[in-house]
């Protein structure tokens, strides 16, 4: 028998889709029965009260949570988000219901043993409710009380070799795609770079230093499986600057509809009959820059005009391969629509070398120049993308020392004035007036 009547929440179970309400009810029942004999360190009815407070919020049309607080673990300015219920008399199980963010591993690779350990810990010292994963990428542990925080942190760090993630005005936990561990399209080792950045910027991850949140996300190639271009203040997208490698024999196998060469590596096979493969309709005709043609059984790509959209490579993976001169592009300023609407990242550095042997020097130089500018000039709670809008992309180029190039131009300028700086003008502001007067009367 449920502790609270939840008629409105029950409606959320009536659709054909999976319901978090059913999950919470199952968890509430599991805790009540406690067949495993766990010595729960927080109230046993935490899940019942969570359902109860949500039902009350639905009824009142307003929240009954107080968000934020002083809670944290020693020395860390992030990783814990305080949450309190404003009706603890009715819902004592969720009087304190803090969130902990756990730094997810690169590529989100886990062993089952690790996941069991994590779930055991959370059943023991928390509500047992997790979110795999939050938008930033972290493992989110939902619902525990203040005295449990240090205990959980101790177990995570000492027994599980696991750190908390970022929250607040910190660098958020860097997140990446599977990269070279599984994917032939990856232009650099995303896991290695995430690991490096996480270690290199530990201080920024745990001790708040920024005007607001800052996110790194890493895509191994322009397919952008983690959508870094839309989801991170600084996005690293793998690319190459030589030519797409073409195996002409394999191209012809695709054209001949050889069953060993299915389009899209067979990803859409079986969903319906797509008919025979048509290279014009499915590849060359869809090239966004029209830089390809297939003539006389030969595929030609004008690589100078290729924008690395990946479509041709995705459709004919056995025939086309990413180039060999690989690196990454850095885009900056993406954000969600709290102020000024959502923004996609803008291209800052078209090609950057990815070199672990020099500690990714080219990458860290750009990161630190951007941070120095944002920390100095950014207003409180101003994202990097908003600062770029406010002070201009040109200013960003100045602080990063990157020369302007056509790829930085989004549209022709609308302001007819050019404000030169002294060092941009030959001879500066000084001039010989007498020499000038020889040719120009007063």
């Amino acid at each position: 028998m449920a502790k609270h009547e939840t008629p409105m929440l029950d409606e959320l179970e009536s659709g054909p889709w999976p319901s978090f309400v059913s999950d919470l009810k199952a968890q509430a029942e599991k805790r009540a029965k406690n067949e495993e004999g766990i010595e729960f360190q927080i109230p046993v009815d935490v899940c019942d009260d969570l359902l109860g407070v949500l039902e009350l919020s639905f009824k009142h049309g307003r929240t009954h949570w107080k968000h934020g607080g002083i809670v944290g673990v020693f020395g860390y300015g992030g990783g814990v988000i305080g949450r309190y219920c404003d009706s603890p008399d009715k819902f004592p199980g969720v009087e304190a219901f803090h969130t902990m963010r756990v730094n997810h591993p690169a590529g989100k690779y886990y062993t089952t043993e690790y996941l069991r350990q994590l779930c055991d810990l959370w059943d023991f010292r928390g509500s047992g409710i997790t979110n795999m994963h939050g938008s930033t990428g972290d493992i989110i542990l939902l619902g525990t009380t203040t005295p449990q925080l240090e205990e959980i942190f101790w177990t995570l760090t000492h027994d599980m070799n696991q750190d908390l993630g970022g929250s607040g005005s910190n660098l958020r936990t860097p997140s990446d795609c599977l990269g070279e561990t599984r994917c032939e399209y990856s232009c650099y080792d995303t896991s290695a770079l995430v690991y490096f950045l996480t270690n290199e910027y530990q201080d920024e991850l745990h001790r708040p230093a920024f005007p607001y949140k800052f996110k790194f996300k890493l895509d191994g190639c322009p397919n952008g499986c983690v959508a870094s271009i839309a989801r991170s203040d600084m996005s690293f997208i793998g690319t190459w600057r030589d030519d797409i490698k073409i195996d002409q024999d394999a191209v012809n196998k695709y054209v001949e509809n050889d069953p060993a060469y299915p389009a899209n590596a067979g990803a859409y096979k079986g969903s319906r009959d797509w008919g025979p493969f048509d290279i014009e309709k499915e590849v060359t005709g869809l090239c966004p820059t029209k830089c390809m043609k297939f003539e006389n059984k030969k595929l030609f790509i004008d690589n100078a005009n290729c924008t690395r959209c990946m479509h041709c490579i995705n459709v004919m993976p056995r025939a086309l391969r990413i180039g060999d001169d690989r690196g990454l592009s850095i885009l900056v300023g993406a954000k969600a629509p709290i102020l000024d609407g959502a923004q996609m990242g803008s291209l800052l550095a078209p090609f950057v070398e990815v070199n672990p042997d020099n500690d990714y020097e080219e990458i860290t130089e750009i990161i630190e120049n951007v941070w120095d500018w944002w920390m100095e000039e950014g207003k409180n709670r101003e994202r990097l993308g908003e600062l770029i809008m406010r002070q201009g992309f040109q200013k960003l180029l100045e602080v990063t020392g990157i020369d302007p190039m056509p790829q930085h131009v989004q549209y022709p300028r609308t302001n007819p004035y050019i404000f030169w700086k002294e060092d941009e003008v030959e001879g500066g502001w000084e001039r010989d007036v007498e020499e000038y007067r020889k040719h120009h009367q007063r």
Partner: protein
Amino acid sequence: MSELLDNTEAATKAVVDWLTKKQKSKTKFYIKDFYKIFPDDKPRAIKKVINKMVETGELEFWSSGSTTMYGLKGAGKQHSTEGEE
């Protein structure tokens, strides 16, 4: 780094004095607010000192989850009284 920021004791005192003076009207501050105390220093050097003060117990963090603020330990509203006088 300025002499003031370099001298831990003096820097700590300057921060505590500044916060104590402000305490009547406000108890939680953004990291940028501390830049005013050390006008000649770089943000990164300032944040190191301010975070050290959290570690040594003079200051404490307040986090909404998206933004983090700093205040004197125990000053202002604590979680149990948030939203009340």
